[in-house]
């Protein structure tokens, strides 16, 4: 169910458990090439990114290699057209679209769909 609001502000929303969840009403808070963390209703966390062309991504904030909730603080990059973030702790890279770890086939984190409403 989507609630219709008549506000004109921009909203960044993640698709979580069957619904769009607004996480940020000021996209300028997210420096292109960097991320921010968002708290989800079930207590888990998402890492939300924007790339230089204004495309948005979101994956789980937990770094599966260390257990710390820090992926949002990693450096973003792209390789062969795939946007990724490198974990700030031990530097493994994760595909921002799928959550797949690019340095260890067997590891992946959850990825979320993102949309920006203006």
């Amino acid at each position, binding site marked *: 169910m989507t609630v219709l609001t008549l506000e004109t502000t921009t909203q960044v929303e993640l698709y979580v458990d069957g619904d769009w969840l607004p996480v940020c009403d000021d996209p300028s808070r997210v420096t292109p*090439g960097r991320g921010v963390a968002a708290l989800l209703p079930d207590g888990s966390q998402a890492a*939300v990114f924007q790339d230089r062309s204004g495309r948005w991504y979101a994956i*789980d904030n937990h770094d599966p*290699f*260390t*257990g710390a909730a820090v992926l949002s603080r990693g*450096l973003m*990059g792209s390789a062969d057209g795939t946007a990724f973030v490198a974990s700030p702790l031990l530097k493994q890279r994760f595909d921002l679209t799928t959550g797949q770890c690019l340095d260890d086939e067997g590891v992946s984190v959850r990825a979320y769909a993102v949309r920006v409403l203006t």
Partner: protein
Amino acid sequence: MSTTPRTIVLVGHGMVGQRFLEALAEHGVAGRDRVVVLCEEPRPAYDRVQLTSYFAGRTPEDLSLSDAEFLDRHGIELHLGDPAETIDRERSTVTARSGLTVTYDTLVLATGSYPFVPPVPGKDAEGCFVYRTIEDLLAIEEYAKNATTGAVVGGGLLGLEAAGALKGLGLNTHIVEFAPRLMPVQVDDGGGAALHRTITDMGLTVHTGTGTQQIVTAENGSVTAMQLSDGSELATDMVVFSAGVRPRDQLARDCGLGVGERGGITVDEQCRTADPKVFAIGECALAADGRVYGLVAPGYEMAQVAAAAIAEDENTGAFTGADMSTKLKLLGVDVASFGDAHGTTEGCLDVVYADSRAGTYKKLVIGADGELLGGVLVGDAEAYGTLRPLTGTVPPISPEQLVLPAGAGAPVSLGPAALPDEAVICSCHNVTKGTIRGAVTEHSCTSVPEVKKCTKAGTGCGSCVKVLGQLVTAELEAGGVEVDKGLCGCFAQTRQELYEIVLALRVSSYRELLDAHGREEARGGDGCEICKPTVGSIIASLAPTLGADGYVLDGEQAALQDTNDHFLANLQKNGSYSIVPRIPGGEITPEKLIVIGEVARDFGLYTKITGGQRIDMFGARVEQLPLIWAKLVDAGFESGHAYGKSLRTVKSCVGETWCRYGVQDSVRMAIDLELRYRGLRSPHKLKSAVSGCARECAEAQSKDFGVIATSNGWNLYVGGNGGATPRHADLLAQDLDDDGLIRLIDRFLMFYIRTADRLERTSTWLERIEGGLDHVRDVVVEDSLGICADLEQLMTAHVAGYHDEWASTLDDPERLARFVSFVNAPEVPDPTVRFVPERNQIKPELPLLNLTTRPLEGTATR
């Protein structure tokens, strides 16, 4: 070679069964003959060795070893959830539970093992588990949701793995081992003691020399406690039995095939049973050498031997025995054992190195002729990758040197280059060094992933991957393959070349640089984690000269900085940060000490005197950083740049002011130098020290630039390094006056910043650049390139443009806005950052394993 299609039936689709199918396919048999697989488990073969990684977020699909495409392509019939129940050898039929009966020409048994559960009363109670299949893990995970304590019966390899998993699920975990030490099969008493200590330190409770007598249950039949052989009772909500495995040979027994005294289907060197139509491979087989192998590598070898025999390949191999080397993967403690670990060979000698404080224990078993027979490594198994392949040979250096830790005595790191071609690098897949080299030279592999695909090396337990990488690089370089010298996938230039471009063209934007000078395919993209901080650092070093903003977090520059610089603090393992205010020269007033004490007390931070003559406060949350710094800046502190690739500290000794030997005011000089170069971004961190006389109490000769007082002035030393590869600094110039000293350091640092590679300390840079120290002296003392005026100019600009990053941050609400835990809940502290007490302060609370802390009720990551 037979021509009429046969029917081959495989019973058991486990790891070895799957490998057997692959080998049949490689021999072309699978396409020609009918292959039927009876699989007991509800899913096709998966990676049992990596089973525990399920708790680290790997899904059952991730663990799968077999895909529908492979089975389809080779026409293999797979019957899931339908175990074989009877074999009729007279009629050559096998009947499955569903009633399906297949007539075979060849029958292959690969039924693996079952976990042995000691016959203690109550062993079948609710809350008792074994640890073998994905289904077992799902059940354990489910039950653990309502449990707080768990006990594992068995302190062997698998028991420790299971204990790690329970601990990772948030349970108070106990290990009960009957033998007097942990991992009794692999390690000896010394190794067991080191292991015991490490595991206890991780928060598990270990009971060795203790048997399990009974499982105590509640009225409803669920586990409440264990009764131990020492008479005590251990309260627990669940029990996982991991007391060894037994071969699943019942099918064979029932149809009259021979089995060993302690189980296992008797086979010959081709893995054939007494019935020529029937083979047995993997953990269910009793190999020709009279042993049952509980490891996957020998099973794989059997699979290959049996497949070759069935394919009637002329080069049929033979399975005559295998290596029992193991490396524990998961528990966060390095344990490895290889070869004759217990020293059972006659006339052998042990070389032991033990450091019980550090929890390390290393033992090598050396034969009468000096050959390496085996060993045990606990706490530091770094050498496993090279030692195991050397087993059976006389190592090129003495055994003591192989076990001593780096830094003690004569440390020798024996690289894989020293290994012979026959050395087995990957024992999971039995891949030799020669094969790996061949993958590079003959099959033109140019990267580790390609070599993995080509040879299968490194795709098992993963313990050989590091050595594999070293071999691949060495081979590529030896082959004259042009190893791309470019900085990364985005830039074909070296760091030095990029520096020249940035300086000459006054480029102050990373995107501009990437789009105009990056590799074709990288232009327009987002760069990568290597070039972004490198270019960020170049732009920051040259900021005043480029007319760029000197504040490293403004505009686009914010996106370039490594995490530490991005938050102007050092990220710690649990996601909290440490804070290091600058204390120039190590000199500090009592008032300032009190402020640090108050701040640390008020925010509950762990406080430590660093090795760099200053004070580090650990455990700050992101959103606390501005609050803490507001107090520190108020009291006159500035950023200490502990996070930056920039000047760290200039240490000092007390010098002539107080010391009876001192000949110059070393403290004043150290403060002057620290204030001059603070904030200077460079290829790697910069450290310095000033000693008041030749006694060198400040250890200046271990610094990037070190100064030692003489009665006539100062001697300048450069290129020193502590760290992993210590290097004494070289004397660059003698008896300098204050101005002369500073001018020379200005030039030296700017020349280094201009020409060094990314993350190259002055020590490695000095050794690498052509002409070495003499060249540097020519350039910065004699001005042979005529650039000294430029270098000095650049430094003057840096000094003039310096601002304290934390003061600038606090002055600007926009800049402060990034220091929040969550964009949608800025005030809510990150719930995963937790601490526990330790020696009257705090330390991070970490799960034992490097596991994702998953909320037990949800399945957030799956």
